[in-house]
């Protein structure tokens, strides 16, 4: 099955889906030195985003969050790709400066945690075996 969306930052990646139904605040919500989600009460709390295809509705919080994605990339702990329903400034800028493939306007309710996803962000598509 292939879902279509819009290119935010191009590139190809594949990996296991890590799916949140909540917004993510990278600044204060994700530890750049471990890749773990640290926001109390978040549905991904305690899980690592490193190497995963990170699927969540939209970003939130401080614009400094863009730099957290950049730091994760330098630490080898960035997600392989990001898929959003509606990308906003913080996540978009973070993906551009950290060069993480990113697409949005995707129906993320079709994606379940643990699926193996193939992302072609240049074409704005994500494929998987349902």
């Amino acid at each position: 099955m292939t879902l279509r969306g819009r290119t935010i930052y191009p590139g190809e990646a594949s990996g296991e889906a890590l799916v949140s139904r909540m917004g993510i605040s990278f600044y204060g919500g994700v530890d750049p030195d471990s890749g773990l989600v640290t926001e109390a009460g978040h549905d991904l709390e305690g899980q690592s985003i490193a190497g995963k295809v990170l699927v969540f509705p939209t970003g939130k919080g401080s614009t400094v969050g863009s730099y957290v994605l950049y730091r994760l990339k330098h630490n080898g702990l960035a997600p392989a790709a990001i898929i959003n329903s509606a990308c906003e400034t913080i996540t978009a800028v973070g993906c551009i400066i950290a060069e993480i493939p990113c697409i949005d306007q995707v129906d993320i309710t079709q994606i379940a945690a643990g699926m193996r996803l193939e992302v072609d962000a240049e074409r704005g598509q994500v494929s998987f075996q349902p």
Partner: protein
Amino acid sequence: MHLTPAEQALLAGESGPAAQKSLQILATLGRIYGAERMIPVRSVQIAGVSYDNLGEAGLAWLAEMAAGGGRAQVFTTLNPAGMDVENYPALGISEAFAENQRCVLAAFEAMGVVTTCSCTPYLFGNLPHFGEHIAWAESSAVCFANSVLGARTNREGGPSALAAALTGRTPAYGYHLDENRRPGLHVQVTAPLTDTPDFGALGKVIGDLLQTRSVERVPYITGVHEDSLEHLKSFCASIATFGGVALFHMPGITPEADALGPPSEKITIGQRDLEAAKADLTSAEPDEVDFLSLGCPHLTLGEIERIARGLQGKQVTREFWITTSRPVKGMADRMGYTAIIEEAGAKFATDTCCVVAPIKGRFTALATDSAKACYYAYAKNGFKTRLLDFDELLAEAVR
């Protein structure tokens, strides 16, 4: 989104990697928010300057942009830094922090950015005129530029403001366009407003109210007849902090109000609302206060003169920070105000402030005349707060 040949050349990397990355950021934001084209900006103001907010990652990014040939194309100034580069030991800032903060400023300087660090750039030459397009980041200055000056800017983040500086452009969406500057809610103020805390409280009441609505709406505020620069900057800081407001209209005071006129939906704010907001911002008992600060947003020369008059021949009894920009401090030096204030034992914290300095947990309670400073003192630094009138605060400092 339409890009000109010059913009396409930047995107292709013909002016180096920093300008290329900048145009990628701006073009992507333009696509996300539905901009049809880029527009030139006349000036830029960049936030994300304190090492306390940027951290190692932010510094690494700035260094990469400087190394990638980044060069400001328009007049660009910075938001407050995490320390006063001259007076930091007296403010208790560590040498390790100072070294990192100096690296941040060096990266900006290498890119041709003016490294005066202030939330009130309009007080020293970064002063856009009516209708001019700019890309500013500091939330209180964005609100002041849009509302009081009638310039046009969105609320930029640190990287998008830097990208605008390095290309001289911003995508045309949001508050750059006429249709998004129209008022959506009439706020009638019946309470009298006299000192800065009244304006801070009014900003909090309106800001909190707008936060509870799902749609972003520009407030049209009537009943405010006082229009000093100092009160307006305090109001802008508060309504931006509590409501994320980037633009308001005030007939008789702001330049676009009369042409637009009030919208039909109206709410009224009275004395009781302001008192409740002030009570919300006061959690400390008088004797718990071990830190005082004036200058959020940064002080004008007139405010510094008022402090000098209040402290002349007296001694402050607690840590007291006077925060302003270096150009305004220079005028205060010449007028003799600085000497009077320092003689009384208060400390100048120039080009920094109590919001962005690395002082988490260092004090128990902050007293200030600024609603914005109260918010961040609690949320970022874990302090209790007391919101006082300007002269009350000066009296408290020497009690």
